[in-house]
């Protein structure tokens, strides 16, 4: 079983002392700041983005102090740490959660869970020909999705229970390092009410944050299997329909994007929105990270782009200051933009 200490160690290794430990906290928490979004890319930590939303700062500190006490990490600057050789060993001997992919799945993990939970309850009551029951999920959007699914599915109603059962079993029996109990016992069916997260955590002797990680891993596992072979999972692939992807941009950035697409310049947008230019620049960096086909060529000459990437590789760093010292003609904004757009690709 993977654990949170292990994720922290992995993140610290990736950061390589170039960011403070709290950048990890923001990453796991899913803070929607340009800095955090950018770090997730630069240090190849996207899969851990937003996977521990309920993690409090105190709990984070506690886990981190534990790493310190066990001498798995050592300080290399203010709030900056590197792995000790014991830390490296620990990391090698403990697996990372296999399916967790926060960047890709976290925007709709909750809604997929709510859909699955309602789908199973409704299907179960179909199977037992019960029409009177209280739906366990209250989200109106989820109810509407279910109505749409029942209308459009090609699976006959009588077969639904069986199909759903075999699809879930197919995935969970072949999944690597997933405990199906964290997910299955939460499901409600005919005359069987699911357990709460805290009840299962207690039964499995997990603390709540560890349970959360296991649960996220299980849902991401379903998503992973369904996404790679949708034809094989006719019922479960419906969980994916009409999902909203707009979530990956911050609200403010979305407004900026609209104006940018209308042809306004950075300065003009700052003026219209009554924001600082640096804020608009943060948004542009977000677009470089998230918006497919977003071109940075109008903000940085291609020649400078190549230079920045060259230096970054040569010096093995994503620290802006180091790069800037080599290329005085590039602004910090331009360096960030280039690293956001290509940094990730070049390094993996």
């Amino acid at each position: 079983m993977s654990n949170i200490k292990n994720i922290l160690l992995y993140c610290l290794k990736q950061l390589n002392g170039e960011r403070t430990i709290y950048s990890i906290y923001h990453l796991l928490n899913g803070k929607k700041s340009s800095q955090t979004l950018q770090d997730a890319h630069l240090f190849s930590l996207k899969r851990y983005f937003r996977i521990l939303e309920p993690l409090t700062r105190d709990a984070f500190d506690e886990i981190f102090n534990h790493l310190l006490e066990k001498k798995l990490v050592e300080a290399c600057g203010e709030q900056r740490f590197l792995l000790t050789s014991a830390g490296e060993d620990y990391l090698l001997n403990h697996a990372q959660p296999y399916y967790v992919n926060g960047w890709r799945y976290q925007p709709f993990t909750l809604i997929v869970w709510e859909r699955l939970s309602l789908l199973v309850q409704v299907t179960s009551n179909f199977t037992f020909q019960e029409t009177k029951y209280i739906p366990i999920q209250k989200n109106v959007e989820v109810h509407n999705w279910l109505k749409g699914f029942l209308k459009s599915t090609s699976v006959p109603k009588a077969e639904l229970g069986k199909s759903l059962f075999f699809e879930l079993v197919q995935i969970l029996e072949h999944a690597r390092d997933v405990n199906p109990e964290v997910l299955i016992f939460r499901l409600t069916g005919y005359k069987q009410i699911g357990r709460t997260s805290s009840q299962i955590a207690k039964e499995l002797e997990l603390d709540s944050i560890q349970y959360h990680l296991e649960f996220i891993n299980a849902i991401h596992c379903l998503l992973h299997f369904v996404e790679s072979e949708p034809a094989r999972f006719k019922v479960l692939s419906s969980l994916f329909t009409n999902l909203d992807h707009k979530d990956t941009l911050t609200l403010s950035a979305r407004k900026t994007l609209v104006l940018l697409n209308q042809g306004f310049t950075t300065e003009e947008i700052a003026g219209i929105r009554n924001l600082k230019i640096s804020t608009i620049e943060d948004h542009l960096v977000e677009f470089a990270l998230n918006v497919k086909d977003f071109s940075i060529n109008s903000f940085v000459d291609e020649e400078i782009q190549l230079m920045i990437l060259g230096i970054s590789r040569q010096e093995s760093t994503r620290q802006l200051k180091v790069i800037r010292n080599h290329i005085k003609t590039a602004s910090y904004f331009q360096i960030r933009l280039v690293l956001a757009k290509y940094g990730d690709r070049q390094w993996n």
Partner: protein
Amino acid sequence: MNKHFGYKTFKTGQKEVISSLLGGNHTIAMLPTGTGKSLCYQLPAYCLDGQILIISPLLSLMQDQVEQLMKFGEKRVIALNSFLDAEKRGYVLRNLKQYKYIFVSPEMLSMPIIMKKLQALTVSLFVVDEAHCISQWGYDFRPEYSKLGDYRKQLGNPLTLALTATATKKVREDIIQSLDLQKFTKIESTIDRPNIAFYIEEVTNYYDKQSRLIELVRKLQKPGIIYFSSKKIAEQMASLLADKGITRAMAYHGGLDQEQRILIQQQFIHGQLDIICATSAFGMGVNKENIRFIVHYHMPMQIESYLQEIGRAGRDGEDSVAILLYARGDDQLPIQLAEGELPSEQQIDWLFSYFPKEEILIDHFLDMNQHLREDGGFSEVQWRIIQDFIKKSLKFTNLEQAKQRLKDFVNARLKVKKDNIHYLKKWIESKSCRRELILNYFEDELVLEKIQNCCDVCGIQLEQYQAAEDFHSHPDNAKMWKDYLANILLNRELR
């Protein structure tokens, strides 16, 4: 009736209320908790043209009633409240005519656009749920409820049904006056629930209370509910009971997320839990027939809510018991809670010192300066009281006068609350029949026949509420995840 609502017979008072309404009479009905008040407007709806408008004070209550109606296949139901998103709201308001049951919060009714839409309909029945919230004397006074009489007039004085839980005579008179009902039928079924015995037990201190509770939970026939005034203690006790393997217990309170609350409530209803350690947040929508006991670990705030809580026991008519554990000094906690619900004099003085002296709209000032809430340490409830008060009294030009009125209002509320607590304490310490005192309080008629299992004063044996043998929780049958899944999806055991 069975077809639409799944009931075969009427419960106390229902038939009388329904006949009165069908006879075209405004009706005020006080029915005991757990007697299916909502049927009183659901059934007449089938005989009345036009819409049934139901005013409900709590979003969760509204949501629950909508769900209950939908459960029996009624689709023409809508709840107009802040849950409705803007897009859906536009659609709903344009197509209001297609709904039969319209639930609405008093805040929504105060919006001119909503009122205009409602005026275009034929409201054939105006239902005020939880009507005791109208009265200042009630324990659950809601200032926004006091305008319902106006709204009713704006809708052309439709046929009206005021439903109230246990309320004193004073409160009932307030309801009638506030709704401006000239002629009306009063249906007051007795609040007495003869199958629920009262049992007050005095313990010497906190530790004794805890061990006594464990002993009771061990012995009493389950399922049961234990009420607490504190989330934290409810949690602690639930863990204690579950960890010691005494019983399948869970805590339920407003601090849990919605999914957990629904699951725990449903687990209890489906017999997967024996005990709920609850705060007053628990109870709504819990239609469970066979609850055998209610224990109050802390002293309740007033007799009305106490009756409502113990009224959840024995809906199947079988013998049940309401136990209140009392230690000297227990009245301190409810007094503290009551004080905490209202802004203090110091807080009011502090706030008014920030108000601009020129004549401007104070409510606008409050909206613009929300930080004052945090700075002055106002709780949500306290802040709401202030806002309501300010909104109602825009005409003040004299700030000093306004301040004094607010203080008077707060003091009056506090007095009502303290009187309630004081009365409850007297009831606990009294040596007369518990049932008789309560019936007197509500000016209910005394039952002539003496109830056999009445109360601890008249003499009852707790032993008779014990489980026949030591209670053993049934282990959940499916231990393996695959079996569990097969059980719910395949209608057969997977071999």
